[in-house]
């Protein structure tokens, strides 16, 4: 039971932060299929930085870890500029742009990882090895049954994500900027008429999306393999998209969707253990979150509707 909660949370939270990024982007009216590529590129930047600075710190110093998060954040943001440029400046089809960015991110990071390893670290390798991040257990509260598991064996990124998610929620729903952002996804003409530049708001939204995706990416890199390699592209970006659509483009329901994925996944593993199925049945467990999503959408998807202006290229002159 505890394992389900601990592992479920450590999977759900990075997913959630990427989905929040997606919400920002899509609530501003820009379709974002690029999360997969953005998280990979972000993770790449974070990992590269961590590897570069690690020698300056004591082996078990957590500083590289936090700096990696910062740089993943920045790296994702940087790469998202490409999506912003294509979608906002060049008015490209947003779905296509997303797909292209995913293709590019994969080939670029793989290529650069090898190049950098060979030329800078003079050690041929197709991955960056990161130190593992320490896991913390909050004393006291962690011994409460069930609830305690939430505070047990936490990755340091989990509270960070929780904090950022709260800020993101706050900004989106409580601040003027959030108001403008959500308005852009409904009626950009209204935003324009109110004297706010739609392009700028959308640019910011896409950048937030890139940043949060990058953050999610580095968290996965740390929590799953403690290194960066092309294995980072295992489809979690797409899962985040499913989560946010499932969550009807709203933050709290999306959290629910992510937790569902997380617990379905960790629960599935426990189930396998319990049923003592041979390892070849593993694949059937992996299918669980996806089947579950489809089923939930069949039952609850009818009421979902995307932001009104989603995917519509904003053209001032259009009437």
């Amino acid at each position, binding site marked *: 039971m505890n394992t389900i909660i601990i592992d479920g949370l450590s999977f759900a939270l990075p997913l959630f932060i990427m989905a929040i990024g997606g919400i920002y982007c899509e609530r501003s009216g820009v379709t974002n299929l690029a999360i997969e590529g953005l998280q990979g590129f972000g993770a790449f930047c974070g990992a590269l930085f961590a590897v570069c600075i690690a020698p300056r710190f004591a082996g078990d110093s957590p500083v590289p870890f936090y700096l990696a998060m910062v740089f993943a954040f920045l790296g994702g943001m940087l790469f998202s500029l490409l999506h912003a440029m294509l979608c906002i400046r*060049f008015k490209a089809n947003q779905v*296509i742009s997303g797909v292209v960015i995913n293709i590019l991110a994969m080939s670029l990071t793989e290529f650069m990882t090898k190049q950098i390893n060979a030329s800078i670290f003079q050690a041929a390798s197709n991955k960056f090895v990161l130190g593992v991040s320490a896991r913390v257990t909050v004393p006291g509260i962690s011994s409460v049954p069930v609830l305690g598991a939430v505070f047990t064996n936490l990755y340091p990124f989990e509270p960070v994500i929780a904090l950022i998610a709260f800020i993101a929620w706050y900004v989106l729903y409580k601040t003027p900027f959030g108001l403008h952002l959500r308005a852009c996804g409904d009626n950009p003409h209204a935003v324009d008429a109110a004297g706010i530049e739609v392009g700028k708001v959308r640019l910011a939204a896409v950048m937030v999306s890139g940043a949060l995706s990058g953050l999610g990416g580095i968290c996965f890199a740390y929590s799953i393999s403690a290194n960066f390699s092309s294995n980072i592209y295992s489809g979690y970006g797409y899962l985040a998209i499913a989560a946010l659509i499932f969550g009807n483009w709203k933050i709290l329901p999306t959290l629910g969707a992510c937790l569902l994925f997380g617990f379905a996944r960790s629960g599935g593993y426990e189930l396998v253990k319990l049923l003592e199925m041979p390892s070849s*049945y593993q*694949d059937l467990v992996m299918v669980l979150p996806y089947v579950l999503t489809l089923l939930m959408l*069949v039952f609850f998807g009818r009421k*979902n509707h995307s932001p009104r202006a989603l995917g519509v290229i904003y053209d001032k002159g259009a009437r």
Partner: protein
Amino acid sequence: MKKHDWIPFFTVFLSLILGIVVIAMLGKNPFLAYYNLLQGSGLAPKASYAGHKGMITDFTSFLNALTPMLLASLSVLIALKAGLFNIGVSGQMLAAAFVATVLVGYSELPAVLAKPLVILIGLTVGALVGGLVGFLRHRFNINEVVSTIMCNYIVQYVVSFFINVFFVDPVSRQSKNIGAAARLTLVDVTVGDYKMDIPLGIVVAAIAVAATVFLLGKTTLGFEIKAVGSGSRAAEYAGIRVGRTRVLAMMLSGGAAGLAGVTYYLGYFSSMQPRVLASTGYDAIAVALLGNSSPIGIIFSSFLITVISKGSTYMSSTAGVQAEMASALTGIILLISACGAYVRERLDRRKEKR
């Protein structure tokens, strides 16, 4: 040629120039690299050939690789015409190929029966998966982008499960090879002194492209698909059954994807890897765009993209440019062509100013 049909050519040209710059920066000879791509694809002669090989064998092998790409782009295109994004081409390909492999690939059927049956199964299974996506959209309002992504994963893992449990080949670690009778590529056919792979699938692809041109331009269903794709509410108002049209379009799209699947896994290849989806399905989205969303256009665009991917091994062997460069080049081409709409708009504006 219509007004701005040359724009894709222009963007490709621009990307190739960018590619030259990048390759030159890596310290390699870009022109040699490009020439190697052509050589590797059998479009230019190589310096030397192995026994029983020649330009013609490279070219048939290139056609073999081109076939699934063409069909997959066609699949994306048909859905696009109905206003739907089929992100699930890869999954539909795998599902169709898996069923065809199990039902026909491992059977003892003679070639005359097996080959048509493989095509038929590919078409049917692809159409069923595609139809399911269309149905979910129509009946339950599930965005097809999500459902196709989910279907991709589901197909990938379920097929992987069956391969690993029932059909695995211990040496190759993928599904057991299918029998030659079922294979849509005739392998190692001796023609004169050459031994070549002859892709029968290219005929299927050619027919499919022609059929799509006909469907979209000349049939009522094509008209309905276009109407639904560009204005579903107006189409409904005009008495077109929007849901049915969407489901049909997705079935056609899935069918094309299924054909891509059988020509890929039972033609170009002869087995499936567990837990791997062909990247063809994703590339096809961009290839369809590059082809200006027209069936004739995608012949050019899939040709181009296949030259790059097919020639990459030879390029990396000869010019010393890493094979990843090929996918980066593809990425650049797609990136720049995504801006085609912008170029068009600017040109329109400029023209009207004058």
